[in-house]
């Protein structure tokens, strides 16, 4: 007789406990929805509205104008130049990122933390200064200016200058994605592979690379986005020669300053589409990496 009553008492107590617990562990619905509303308004004002306005302004005067703005020879030259820069900068920085991550995570040596800080250094430097340093090196009055002039080599106000300034700005992207990842994975798998007789290269391609592929891709995507969009550093070293040394962001600047808003936003919309694709790929990678 007494037993069921006890059970009943216990369960009711439990229910009571759970109720108070969940109450103090969550905000009221009012707080919750206010916070969600604040977030959405903030994001709408700062992120969504600018993005939407780019496409609306670009298409304001219809498809024909839009297509004409992008098919303009100067615009096409800018797109081509940007692609060329990407094809040089991204692979070089990716190789550096992998090599640096290998050196830093597979071996122990003195001054490792200093090296990591130095690799991150370009993040702390203004893009304008990133451009300036290469003027100081390769410009007419620069350290190598005289020598370059005598040998008829153009770096500043030409493709090599744009490439090297972009390399400086995007220098840490791949390395800083790979270093923490490879640190976490340790060296046991590589040690096993080597002690079983595989060569260093074989170990890298069949053991390390499969382990870091998502991290590497993630770094590549970020490096790529920044390379395409770099403005300040490139602006300093490019010399703004139309159809020659204008990358896509510089072309946008010129059109905007000439009050050709529709054309400026048309090229900008193209770059926005690239940005959206970047975000989508990034999310897919994050999702895939979680699965593994």
């Amino acid at each position, binding site marked *: 007789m007494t037993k069921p009553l006890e059970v009943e008492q216990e369960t009711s107590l439990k229910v009571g406990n759970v109720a108070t617990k969940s109450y*103090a*562990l969550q905000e*009221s619905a009012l707080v919750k929805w206010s*916070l*969600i509303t604040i*977030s*959405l308004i*903030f*994001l709408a*004002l*700062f*992120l969504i*509205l*600018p*993005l939407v*306005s*780019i496409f609306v302004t670009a298409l304001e005067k219809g498809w024909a104008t839009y297509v004409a703005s992008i098919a303009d020879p100067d615009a096409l030259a800018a797109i081509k130049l940007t692609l060329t820069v990407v094809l040089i900068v991204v692979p070089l920085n990716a190789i*550096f990122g992998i*090599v*640096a991550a290998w*050196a*830093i995570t*597979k*071996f122990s*040596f003195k001054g490792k933390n200093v*090296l990591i*800080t130095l690799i991150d*250094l370009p*993040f*702390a*430097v*203004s*893009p*304008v*200064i990133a451009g*300036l*340093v290469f*003027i*100081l090196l390769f*410009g007419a009055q620069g350290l190598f200016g005289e020598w370059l002039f005598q040998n008829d080599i153009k770096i500043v106000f030409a493709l090599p200058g744009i490439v090297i300034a972009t390399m400086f700005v995007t220098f840490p992207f791949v390395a800083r994605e790979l270093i923490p990842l490879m640190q976490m994975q340790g*060296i046991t798998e590589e040690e096993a592979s080597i002690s079983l007789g595989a060569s*260093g290269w074989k*170990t890298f391609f069949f053991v390390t690379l499969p382990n870091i592929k998502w991290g590497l891709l993630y770094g590549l995507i970020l490096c790529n*986005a920044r390379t395409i969009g770099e*403005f*300040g550093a490139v*602006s*300093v070293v490019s010399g703004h020669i139309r159809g020659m040394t204008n990358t896509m*962001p*510089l072309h*946008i*600047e010129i059109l*905007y300053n000439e009050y050709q808003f529709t054309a400026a936003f048309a090229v*900008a919309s193209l*770059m*926005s589409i690239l*940005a*959206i694709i970047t975000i989508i790929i*990034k*999310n897919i990678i994050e999702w895939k990496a979680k699965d593994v």
Partner: protein
Amino acid sequence: MELTLKKRKKNTIIPGFTLTLGYTMLYLSIIVLLPLSMVFFNTLSMSWSEFWETIADPRAVASYKLSFGTALAAGIINVIFGTIIAWVLVRYQFPGKRIVDGLVDLPFALPTAVAGIALATLYSPNGWVGQFFDFKIAFTPLGIIIALTFIGLPFVVRTVQPVLQNLSSEIEEASASLGATRLQTFTKVIFPELLPAIITGFSLAFARSLGEYGSVVFIAGNMPMKTEITPLIIMTKLEQYDYVGATAIATVMLITSFVLLLLINIIQWYTNRKFNLK
């Protein structure tokens, strides 16, 4: 003896140490260290009075104040809203959450010049947003703050978000079961855990804002003494072929950035120690 032998073995079994470290040092030196050293090298060729005159010029000083003030304001805005957004994204479910989460990365992915012309058009007096305000937003320091808020937002959200995700629910349960209200639990238990991440996010956004150029030049209006940021002063001097002047201002900016980096590390070390000791 055995220990050193083991350590040696550990160091030598994986090949490529000399090659990879050598390549890393070479590439780092050519692309980053040698070019950056040029700023200090060129500054040394200036006399002290020449250097001081350039960096203490009223127009330059006005730009430091503007760059510092707007970066600070944008940083504070991002700390408040960035933390709220991180909280909402981690703790609540609502329709379209995944898209909103992805969208936070937009300022990282969108070229700064594109963001710059879009914000300038939106917030100009007859733009979509600007028309609703009696006062000017674009072409004033307010416009610069908006551009810097845009640039800095993901830094705060993306540093606070993972910390919030990894927060163990036990400490909140303990706090609640001891009778704390939800607000008390947040201010006394959750917030101190988030603080190091918030400080890191703020510093990253602040450091980026000090040097930001692309998104700001379009919306700033670039009036000397009023809306001229420090990177623009460097740009203007370069266009006038005043390389010495540009280098002097760059030295000031570089030293500020490096001191800031040092400060970030010290603050992080301090907050970590303080809360770990408790």
